[in-house]
């Protein structure tokens, strides 16, 4: 009976969605403007996301909430503008409860803005300046809710480690056990989401190879507040790059690297005497692969990262995930992702070797139904298991409704 009611509900939503679809197509035309004989064109678009999370405390990943049932609405507006064939500008602004899901109040942010010049039509060279997602890895192109088969990010982009960017640990013990005493937002993952830091990039395509290098004002692990030029200048830049090889349309292989200091300016007073934040750096090496054939898409990323930690030494970690998406029908697809992150051991100063953060694995399973070309509903279940710490297993249930215009 319940299944019957659910089917009816989906059918009613689908029928209604086609009317909305037509209206949103017309809105799309209305929000596209052009001038100078079509040489200047601009389009406003956006998404409305309604997210619901149910999880156990402590909240997994970068979710910042002390309540276990979290409602997280988000309104995103994009501007894409093209001037001739060589100049492109885009911006993304958000009204939500924080960059990561949280129980805080509403805030408005300008998450991305960038100006791009492509002098040659074959795309051999492109210069981009602004605040935009990193060129590292292959997750960024699908990180927005409409394109991401999951509601959350892969583990490496959101698993909070013992690394902190505002204070230096005063001993190995403080470093290892700090996360048990301080709030989660004191600490950092290896890569914080899509890393919308500020700077410039140069990219291009040479035959079956493509390249991209960027200079940004903050490291891959840096928190969203550090991405703004007004907050964090270019005194300690981070350099990142990716080389891609596409043997054919189905495969895409890439190698990435990144290097830069990860401490914020306020950490300077906590560093050992005579040391500067530039002395402590984050190094990341990444390998990525993707494959697509008909209704199947598969992605994988592998990251090896090293943080130079004051009073501790080198803290190494390895993280990877393998993700697959399959379209069962034109409107229904499922996705499965296996994530794992392993941490090296460090000496705690008392003769014991301990993992500097708990090793953990997580499996994500999600299903998405597209009512129409502008509306979709996603459901996800995640199970996270820590293998080297007394931490409890964590179950996450999430739902996300997205309306795109």
């Amino acid at each position, binding site marked *: 009976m319940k299944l019957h009611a659910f089917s009816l509900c989906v059918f009613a939503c689908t029928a209604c969605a*086609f009317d909305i679809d*037509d209206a949103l197509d017309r809105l799309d035309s209305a929000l596209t403007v052009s001038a100078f004989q079509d040489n200047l064109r601009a389009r406003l678009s956006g998404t409305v996301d309604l997210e619901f999370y149910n999880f156990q405390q402590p909240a997994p990943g970068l979710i910042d909430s002390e309540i276990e049932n979290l409602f997280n609405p988000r309104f995103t507006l994009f501007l894409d503008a093209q001037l001739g064939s060589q100049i492109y500008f885009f911006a993304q602004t958000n009204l939500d409860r924080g960059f990561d899901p949280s129980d805080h109040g509403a805030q408005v942010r300008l998450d991305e803005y960038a100006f791009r010049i492509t002098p040659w*039509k074959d795309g051999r060279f492109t210069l981009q300046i602004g605040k935009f997602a990193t060129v590292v890895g292959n997750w960024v192109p699908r990180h927005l809710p409409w394109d991401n088969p999951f509601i959350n990010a892969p583990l490496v982009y959101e698993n909070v480690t013992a690394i902190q960017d505002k204070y230096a640990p005063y001993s190995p013990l403080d470093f290892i056990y700090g996360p048990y005493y301080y709030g989660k937002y004191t600490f950092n993952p290896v890569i914080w989401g899509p890393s919308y830091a500020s700077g410039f990039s140069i990219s291009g395509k040479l035959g079956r190879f493509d390249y991209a290098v960027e200079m940004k004002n903050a490291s891959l692990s840096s928190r969203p507040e550090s991405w703004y030029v007004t907050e964090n200048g270019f005194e300690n830049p981070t350099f990142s790059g990716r080389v891609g090889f596409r043997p054919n349309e189905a495969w895409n292989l890439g190698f990435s690297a990144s290097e830069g200091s990860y401490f914020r300016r306020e950490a300077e007073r906590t560093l050992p005497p005579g040391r500067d934040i530039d002395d402590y750096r984050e190094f990341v090496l990444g390998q990525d692969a993707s494959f697509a054939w008909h209704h199947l898409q598969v992605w994988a990323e592998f990251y090896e990262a090293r943080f130079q930690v004051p009073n501790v030494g080198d803290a190494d970690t390895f993280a990877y995930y393998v993700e697959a998406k399959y379209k069962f029908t034109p409107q229904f697809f499922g996705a499965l992702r296996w994530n794992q992150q392993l941490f090296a051991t460090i000496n705690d100063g008392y003769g014991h070797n301990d993992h500097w953060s708990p090793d953990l694995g997580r499996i994500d399973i999600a299903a998405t139904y597209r009512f129409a070309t502008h509306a979709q509903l996603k459901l996800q279940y995640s199970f996270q298991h820590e293998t080297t710490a007394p931490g409890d297993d964590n179950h996450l249930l999430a739902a996300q409704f997205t309306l795109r215009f």
Partner: protein
Amino acid sequence: MCRLGLMWSNAILSIIPASLLASAAVEGRVELPKSHGAPVQAKRYEIVTKGGVLSTQPPLAVVYLDGNFPRPVSAPVKQVAQKDLTFIPALLPIQVGTRVEFPNLDDTYHNIFSYSPAKRFDLGRYRAEERPIPSEVFDKPGLVTLRCDIHEHMRGLILVLNTPYFLITDTEGRFRLSGLPEGHYTLRAWIDSRTTREKPVDLKNGQTLHVDFP
């Protein structure tokens, strides 16, 4: 002898398409809406993007003679290609029962799909060398909006009609529909998803009727 001749002429007539035997025609002009600008391609997260302005697709109308005509015996085959990240042609009228192939002429994947009630399908990701060329049979009349799951700006339309008598106007809206059967029909001009104009017409062999859709 006379009977044999009649049989032969009947046999010859039966293998000649009806459209060749019919001789009525309609010509005129459809008032087209103003040309809308070319779409803007969102390429925020593509590390490498080719420069280039997407082409403007001028508004066109489809003029067709409405009626319940027999379906073709063998399914006709038409093509909607993907070239330079656009559908070519952007608007394709077809008769019910037509198979449409979707060849990919770009050096990147395309994923053509439609959620339109008249035809719901998803061809998945395929490249230029894909054989057989991905195709669909359109067996229900109505408007089918084509999209690409990879290139959000791509839009194409297939208008599936119950009649074999149709054509696309030129960019000025002019048309001439010939080879029509004699009789009383409704002539329609499809302009966009919300606008279809119609006029009753009396077609007589050997005559050309003038009809405008203001």
